[in-house]
């Protein structure tokens, strides 16, 4: 009896350890690609910021050239907005939305892969623009016309900036359509809108807002490109164009973009706080609907970036009132988070520290926004370091804290191992202290009269003290982020295995294995509340099976 020699099974090339990441259409892998790529860009954007803080540490510093400094803040802003916060949230959305709604994948998996690759190449284009003739763009992340026109910005920096943003816009738009289609059509049985996880609510609003505002940005970028290379004069007042038009187009996109960056982070906080306080979110409906409210109002506030442009007073009054109106649903969220911790059983694991840190720090960013909404006060503080402080409290103390909370919270789901708690706490405290030491003095600098986007200053005294503090704080922050990466590397080697549900959480992703199987779930129970996994856990406990 001849036994057949066993043939060594060789998997096809596209299942190789490296190649499968290139051809994947799995939402979890794409999510991880998004997150890891964004983290790399985060390091890049962070290094740009550190160089700036180095230059500003003391008056009349010559550590960096003028042109160099102007490139740094232009790229830092663009990188952090377009290559870090928005895509890393897209990464969380990709990984989590199908798991949270009990689906097997997103609605259009191949489109999803395309989004990622556009994002990657858009990002690389931006970083490579440092090597373009004339260097990278040096017109700020807002690239106001006419400064961004060929006459004042020769070379290819601005062209590559436009190309990069076009690629990123396509990526985000395709991704947003995918999220909307997925959330509307692929929720598991019983998951009504009022049982949808709050993070998914924020991703829904994030996606709808992207669909509304990205086309405006694309149109503006195209007009700028035509002005630069096809002889049009959209933004050139010498030929009948309007320099203010660019600002309207840019901020019609730019302000909603701020909420696009903060809302999913708020969603993350809304997932974390109930789990670690062992209570349901206080006022689920209010928290979900305030997300929609913030999304709606945020599209009516763009001209508060333009109060000094000389708009008619009635228009400034209108934009003041709408801008202040956003504070109401934002306040509702903060009060509901506080109420969720009331009489709770609070554990201080790293995700919870970041979520509570978010509430503490974001509150400051929200409140300083009120100064900027009251237009006569805005005339005094706009375009100074006060604004720099405000937006970093919102985007670093807010969005980035939420993101780091999310990373520590879902890391075990993504990779099957828990990040180390001690290192996690070091990360949090260093980042928390660093953020406040860096950005709080910047409010005061702005009130003292320091304009933003200056490569140096000559005043000593308080200016020097605050600037130096800010620089020290940025190094503390950087150290915290370094500890996070050390933690990641250690965890990959020797992290504790997580199991399906290490935090005793509420939402469906914790029902799947850690990391989840390719098909996500073998079966999903009928959903009867906003906390399906808790329901299941209680049922099993009742039966004595757990």
């Amino acid at each position, binding site marked *: 009896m001849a036994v057949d020699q066993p043939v060594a099974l060789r998997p096809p090339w596209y299942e190789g350890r490296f190649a499968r990441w290139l051809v994947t259409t799995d939402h979890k892998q794409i999510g991880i690609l998004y997150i890891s790529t964004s983290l790399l860009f985060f390091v890049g954007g962070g290094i740009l910021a550190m160089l700036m803080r180095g230059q500003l540490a003391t008056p009349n510093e010559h550590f960096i050239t*003028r*042109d160099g400094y*102007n490139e740094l803040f232009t790229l830092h802003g663009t990188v952090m907005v377009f290559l870090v916060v928005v895509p890393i949230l897209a990464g969380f959305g990709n990984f989590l939305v199908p798991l949270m709604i009990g689906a097997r994948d997103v609605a259009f998996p191949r489109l999803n892969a395309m989004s990622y690759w556009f994002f990657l190449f858009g990002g690389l284009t931006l970083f490579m623009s440092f090597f373009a003739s004339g260097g990278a763009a040096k017109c700020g992340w807002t690239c106001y016309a006419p*400064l961004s026109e060929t006459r*004042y910005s020769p070379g290819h920096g601005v062209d590559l900036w436009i190309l990069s943003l076009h690629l990123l816009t396509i990526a985000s738009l395709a991704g947003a359509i995918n999220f909307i289609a997925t959330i509307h059509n692929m929720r598991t049985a019983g998951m009504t809108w009022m049982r949808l996880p709050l993070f998914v609510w924020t991703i829904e609003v994030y996606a709808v807002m992207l669909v509304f505002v990205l086309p405006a940005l694309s149109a503006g970028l195209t007009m700028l490109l035509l002005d630069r290379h096809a002889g049009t004069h959209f933004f050139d*007042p*010498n030929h009948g164009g*309007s*320099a*203010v038009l660019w600002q309207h187009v840019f901020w019609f996109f730019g302000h909603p973009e701020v909420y696009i960056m903060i809302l999913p982070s708020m969603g993350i906080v809304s997932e974390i706080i109930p789990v670690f306080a062992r209570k*349901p979110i*206080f006022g*689920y409906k209010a928290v979900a609907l305030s997300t929609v409210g913030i999304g709606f109002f945020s599209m009516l506030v763009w001209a508060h970036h333009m109060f*000094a442009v*000389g708009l008619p007073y009635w228009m400034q009054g209108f934009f*003041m*009132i709408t801008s202040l109106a956003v*504070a*109401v649903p934002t306040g*509702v969220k*903060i*009060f509901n988070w*506080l*109420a969720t*911790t*009331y*009489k*709770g*059983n*609070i554990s*201080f694991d790293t995700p919870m520290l970041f979520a*509570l840190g978010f509430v*503490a720090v974001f*509150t*400051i960013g929200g409140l300083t926004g009120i100064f900027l909404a*009251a*237009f*006569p*006060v805005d*005339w*005094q*503080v706009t*375009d100074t370091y006060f604004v720099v402080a405000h937006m970093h409290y919102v985007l670093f103390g807010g969005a980035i804290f939420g993101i780091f909370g999310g990373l520590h919270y879902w890391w075990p789901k993504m990779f099957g191992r828990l990040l180390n708690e001690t290192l996690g706490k070091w990360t949090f*405290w260093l980042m928390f*202290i660093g953020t*406040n*030491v860096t950005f*709080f003095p910047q*409010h*005061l600098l702005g*009130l*003292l*009269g320091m*304009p933003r986007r*200056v*490569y140096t200053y000559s005043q000593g*005294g*308080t200016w020097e003290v605050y600037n130096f*503090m800010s620089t020290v704080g940025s190094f503390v922050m950087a150290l915290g982020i370094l500890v996070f990466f050390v933690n990641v590397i250690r965890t990959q080697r020797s992290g504790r295995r997580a199991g399906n549900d290490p935090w*005793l959480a509420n939402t469906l992703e914790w029902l799947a294995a850690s990391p989840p199987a390719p098909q996500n779930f073998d079966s999903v129970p009928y959903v009867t509340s906003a906390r399906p996994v808790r329901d299941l856990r209680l049922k099993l406990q009742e039966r004595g099976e757990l």
Partner: protein
Amino acid sequence: MRRRLLFLALPLAGALALAGVAAAENGGISPVAPVSPNGHRITDAYWLILAITGAVFLIVESTLLLFVIRYRRRGRRRDLEPEQVHGNTRIEVVWTVVPVVLLAVIVGFVFYKLPGIKNTPPASAAGGETNVKVEAYQFYWLFTYPGGRQSINVLTVPKDRVVTLDVTSADVAHSWWVPAFGGKIDAIPGKTNHTWFQAEKVGNYPIRCAEFCGIQHAAMHGFVRVTNGTPSPSAIGKQAFSGVCASCHGFRGEGLIGPAIASSPTLQDRKSLRDLVKNGSGKMPAVGLTWNDQTINAVARYLKQRFGGEASGS
């Protein structure tokens, strides 16, 4: 425990250091002390908002701290569930309505102060009224007084005079800002914006360009010189040199971004100097595009006097 104390001590030390510095010279708790009526009213609005937001800040942060300490797990089991409260409509209405009321107070106060901020005081007010045209350039300010006299980077006005400004730009967007006089107004090409001030005290008040305008944005400074009497005739040539030429050619004319001007042959030839500043050349912008002959002559005279002495520089 010790480590936790250290964490508390660090920010506390930071806050103390900050408070010390701040107390020393009102280091940025409120905007620069205003010396113009519109600036005063803006600062009033600032204080009202600081009071309201400060109260909200204290309430939110102390509640957070209190809850976090009071309801921490301590010895309890992680999975122990306290009472599952899902919400309370009445309290949610309260914390929606109260902020609306607070914001309405802010809106009301802003509109109450607005006329005194945007409207110029009547011309009959003490000191009379002067209109000055302000043109922003990369990277200097050009002022044109009634009667056509010009000055660069230094705006000289008498105390108590109501000065109305027509602000525009010849190239990119800039922003006119004298921190001590109140708000900014952008200088935008193709658009003329209006603002005003009435300086109450004699002194020199820095002007800062507040909108990023290119490579030397950080150096686009000037000042408003508030005098007791009528403005003295300005040394326009010196102003032009330090405000315009020096940004790129260095304060001693030694060359920086542009070549050295000390001992340049152009200085000997008024016509070619005129062409150069009127039209620019290579990397040099047409800085003097709109200067009148009086201004150009003054510049030429100053540069020749200061730098054109010897044929070969050292």
